[in-house]
């Protein structure tokens, strides 16, 4: 086998700028996904509030039940029919964020419900209103429990972001393909891209592991 990585070295600027775009889009989608996911997760805590619960459940069903690629294409090719023209970059962020939010919402709901009932009772017994008890007592504990599952979700998000290259966004995947189209060195370039994604996911894992360790010190659950 004859491997020639020279097109990768020669194209490093393009790959680096693509990596930056990947990081930008993923980080923005991650923030959007977490905020939206938090709201939807909170909305699904109480089935008795039928309207909110129904809306959030519908969101979850639709987004989790259809392919990300199809959702991205609907945003990119479909919205212009309604007179909404989003730049590809924004389509990528919204598409990934909306998709990720569905998964994050279930992580949020599961973590909140895993906090012992006695915590809410103790907070309410002190006179804290429900929302304040949620914010000061339940969510800080739920957050720590979310970290391992959120880590999985962040990593999935980073990898899924390769799909936005199909929306003409110049992410690392897209830059790689451009290099392949002129050098025909597909294996080498894909290996390089795989390595870059591996770096991104490994760093994410490391940061989350550190965070969890700090937060869990002294038996703080």
């Amino acid at each position: 086998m004859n491997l020639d990585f020279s097109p990768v070295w020669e194209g490093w600027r393009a790959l680096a700028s693509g990596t930056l775009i990947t990081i930008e889009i993923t980080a923005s989608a991650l923030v959007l996904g977490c905020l939206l996911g938090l709201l939807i997760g909170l909305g699904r805590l109480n089935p008795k509030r039928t309207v909110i619960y129904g809306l959030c459940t519908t969101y979850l069903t639709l987004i989790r039940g259809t392919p990300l690629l199809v959702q991205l294409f609907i945003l990119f090719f479909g919205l212009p029919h309604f007179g909404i023209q989003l730049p590809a970059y924004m389509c990528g962020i919204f598409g990934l964020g909306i998709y990720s939010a569905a998964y994050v919402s279930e992580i949020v709901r599961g973590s909140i419900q895993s906090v012992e009932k006695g915590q809410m009772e103790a907070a309410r017994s002190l006179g804290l209103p429900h929302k304040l008890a949620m914010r000061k007592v339940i969510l800080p504990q739920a957050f720590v429990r979310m970290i391992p599952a959120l880590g999985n979700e962040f990593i999935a998000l980073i990898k899924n972001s390769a799909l936005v290259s199909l929306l003409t966004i110049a992410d690392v995947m897209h830059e790689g393909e451009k290099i392949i189209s002129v050098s025909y060195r597909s294996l080498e370039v894909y290996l390089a891209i795989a390595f870059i994604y591996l770096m991104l996911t490994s760093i994410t894992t490391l940061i989350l592991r550190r965070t969890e360790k700090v937060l869990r010190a002294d038996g703080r659950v």
Partner: protein
Amino acid sequence: MGAAIIDIQNLSKSFGNHQVLHDITFSVQASQVIVVIGPSGSGKSTFLRCMNGLETAEGGTLRACGHTVVEQGRMMSEKNLDALRSEVGMVFQSFNLFPHLNVLHNITLAPMALRGKSRQEAEEHGLRLLDKVGLKHKAQVFPGTLSGGQKQRVAIARALAMEPKVMLFDEPTSALDPELVGEVLQVMKTLANEGMTMVIVTHEMGFAREVADVVVVMDQGAIVEAAPPAQLFTAPQEARTRRFLQNVLSRDAAPVL
């Protein structure tokens, strides 16, 4: 007799088809120490938890600290419940300290959020309360590092930080190793001596005998008998009380084999 701190008329409650409280009428006067005993499943905890609105009742009337919690089976609004609960301290069997906050912040959280106290004010008060329960040196540690007895003493200090008019204790020593029970009961005894109004669900008969003004015996969701301990433990009027006391006290007196 002055106005009761807690006044309960014909209180009833069911979980589905199972009625857990039957037509309970009872009142607690200022500075009284009420100890509630009875077999497990008799509705003691549910009765106690009705007093700060943690459980909803469907029948009767319950007034606590000037708030009408239940009126003719109708619960007061959530918002008013918050005001009531800030005046009623609650101590749980499983402590329920907030594990993500250190001991002092467990205590200062509610006074700062609800009483508008500054951090400094709240912490000074918190440290005085910790001193009172003998745990001033643990102010900065997290609950996960404490023993059960220490946790429960912090939980008592946390409830006291809201300067409640009455303290409710739901089996405060039942989750403790036997050698740690004494330190918690000692703190409760001190509170009782200072004139705190207390309602205590417990299996500690010795404590009931020593500290209670009135001992209430519950069985199958109803009050069987309520009397001062001297009378209740020596001359119980009801057969069910005698049977319960026999069961509990014979266990305590059983020879070690």
